[in-house]
């Protein structure tokens, strides 16, 4: 039987009441500095393993959610409002596996320009954020994924992206060399336009 003493109860209550995943520091701000929060989280994780509710880690944040294998019970009359276009899914995957990447780099990988709205939709969903500028001519904006992305797709960290180690080993996640990828002048022109748009 788990020790239901104060620290574990406190962390359990705070995470349970929270509207968003919480980092250890955020939890500490509520339960107090003297609590060993990592130990409490470990105890809670063991305790909830296999139950209808699970404690999960997403990035450096923790939260409770329903067990995935019970989705069929809960999904009824909930419709997936976030249907992503094919371009959206690919763009999201490229950002997640290559981050930070510029729009021109995403376009080089996909071999086609992406419409302005594609990244906007991903940002609106809270999965993608601007992440500084690439220090090359034009200083194009770079994009990266967010904590919300990890949490939505059930990833503890980017290392958990499916197959990322294999892709890395195969050299398929090497930085996109725009100069090499630009197979033709037309694409190069299109990309420099896109870069200009980003400004």
């Amino acid at each position: 039987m788990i020790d239901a003493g104060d620290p574990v109860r406190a962390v359990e209550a705070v995470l349970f009441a929270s509207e968003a995943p919480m980092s250890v520091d955020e939890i500490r701000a509520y339960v107090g500095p003297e609590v060993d929060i990592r130990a409490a989280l470990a105890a809670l994780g063991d305790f909830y393993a296999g139950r209808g509710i699970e404690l999960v880690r997403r990035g450096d944040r923790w939260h409770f959610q329903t067990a995935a294998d019970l989705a069929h019970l809960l999904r009824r009359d909930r419709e997936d409002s976030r249907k992503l276009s094919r371009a959206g899914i690919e763009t999201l995957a490229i950002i997640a596996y290559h981050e930070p990447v510029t729009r021109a780099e995403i376009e080089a990988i996909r071999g086609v320009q992406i419409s302005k709205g594609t990244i906007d939709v991903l940002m609106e969903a809270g999965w993608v954020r601007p992440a500084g500028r690439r220090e090359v001519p034009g200083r194009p904006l770079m994009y990266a994924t967010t904590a919300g992305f990890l949490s939505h797709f059930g990833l503890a960290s980017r290392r958990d992206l499916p197959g990322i180690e294999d892709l890395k080993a195969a050299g398929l996640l090497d930085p996109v060399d725009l100069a090499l990828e630009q197979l033709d002048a037309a694409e190069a022109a299109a990309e420099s336009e896109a870069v200009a748009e980003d400004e």
Partner: protein
Amino acid sequence: MRLKGRGFSTGFAWGAPPSYDRPVDGGDDILKIEVEGWEGPLDLLLALARTQKVDLRQISILELVEQYLAYVHAARELRLELAADYLVMAAWLAYLKSALLLPRNPAESPSPEELALRLQLRLERLSAMREAGARLVARDRMGRDVFPRGAPEGLRVQRQAKWEVEIYDLIAAYGRISARTRPVMHVVAHRDVMTLEAALERLSTQLGTRIDWSVIESFLPEGASDLFRRSALASSFVAALELARQGRLEIRQDAPFAPLYLKAIPQ
């Protein structure tokens, strides 16, 4: 295939070119083309490469080039207006094909083999990303497969403003208000002055008793306070000017700021 004008419905499909005899799309003899479905020439190349049914690493680039060119050719025969980037890719692939087939020019860099390898890597990367995207969206997703708590109590941070204000600020503010809003009243204190009229009378009277030039100060009353003397001097000076205008006295000053002398003009 993206077409200029986007005049075709998304369900449009057309048959494979006659020269294209390889079964595609899982045994289907027809290469179905969603007109709006192709996302650029690379996407089309990847779909064509898939028809070789080998690992992308073992793909025959020459064969792929043939497939692509045949495809573009067929599209043109059907008078479909291909977007420019498909044609640019076709031109580049035709160049690559000839470079791969013709005798080598060793000075040329990058070599045709290297270009072919890059194309293959691009296709691999696009394929990998497409697959990764599919795996990503198939994961247990929040709000679709797993659910957060429906009615969390919520955590509250009560922000308490800690106002930075000291007793000094308070008192200084009150001083400021007092100084600002008190009724402003100007009271002119009573002071002894010699009026111009008095000075005129005094000067006229005294002037008759003097024979020679006399300094103006000698006409001022004796033993008066300093303030009164200054008033008397000013009034006497103006009175002297008036009397000079009337032709009753002369004024002499040897230099600026030198003593001012007055003398009556005999009438």
